């Protein structure tokens, strides 16, 4: 009960400052029971027009049977002019600790990847960037929001 309340409280807080907490969880990367190192993603509020939704879902509800489901949407990269100022204000006011947990960048401007196109893909090349590397995690004074792509995968009972 208490954790549901936390998300409501976080949503209420971030909304007041023109921001949002898009995930219903924190992002963890160590295995300790009492994990005090987890981070939370703070973002601009967004929605997928014309719906009210903020996330897309492929809709595969059942583990067994049924056809594969796919969803793809366009992304508008426009941000409001005061976007970065909102983060600065919010983080300074509540004295939050900015923690950098990313270690890779998706790039479209470098053409090197083309070289590999002729090579027959082994299973290794289908594998993507996986996991947060603890030694790359760092606390920073810089408040530099940017576009983030977050993926989480877990076993549901």
């Amino acid at each position, binding site marked *: 009960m*208490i*954790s*549901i309340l*936390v998300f409501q*409280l*976080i949503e*209420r*807080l971030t*909304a007041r400052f*023109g*921001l*949002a*907490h*898009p*995930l*219903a*969880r*924190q*992002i963890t990367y160590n295995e300790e*029971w*009492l*994990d*005090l190192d*987890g*981070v*939370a*993603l*703070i*973002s*601009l*509020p*967004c929605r997928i027009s014309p719906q*009210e*939704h*903020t*996330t897309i*879902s492929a809709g595969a509800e059942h583990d067994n049977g049924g056809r594969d489901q796919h969803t793809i949407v366009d992304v508008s990269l426009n*941000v*409001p002019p005061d*976007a970065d100022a909102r*983060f600065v204000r919010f*983080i300074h006011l*509540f*004295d*939050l*600790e*900015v923690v950098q*947990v990313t270690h890779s960048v998706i790039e479209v401007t470098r053409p090197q990847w083309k070289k590999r196109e002729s090579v027959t893909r082994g299973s290794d090349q289908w594998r993507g960037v996986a996991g947060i590397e603890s030694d790359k995690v760092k606390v920073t004074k810089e408040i*530099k929001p*940017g*576009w*983030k*792509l*977050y*993926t*989480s*995968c*877990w*076993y*549901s009972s």
Partner: protein
Amino acid sequence: MTSITTFAYGLTVRATGLITAAHAWTSLEPTFDFFDLLFLRKRKGTLQSRLSGPTREAIIGKVPVEVWEEIRKWVLVIEMEDKEDSLIRQFSIPCGDEDCNCQGVTKVTWELLKQGTSYCVSLEWLSHGVSLGEFLDRFSSGYGDAIEVSRCRSSS
């Protein structure tokens, strides 16, 4: 197996700090409403006080915005510290030992817990009752529908 992918413009912050801020906000929201109104009236030059006597009335109107901001900042800091302490304490039972060094701890913080073992207030103390570990674990395992859509709010 469940998987979610989220694309967002933002950054990551330490979760414990955000949890504290979110709890403190329940008490701070009316305070911020008050200060917003005060700043608005300050800008319009219509800020007045009901304090009796012309001198006092004039003084309130002349207090600069920077001073009010500093006052608001202090209210916020005090509230955050108190909430952090009470939030963590609700998961713990004091050890009750008068000789224990935890008796000297006036405020429990996430930082104190991180330092761990030197105080009994750390892990052992907190492992009783509804434990903090469970609380944080539920926060990290996406309690309920993790994919549940959070309602979009228009930004102000």
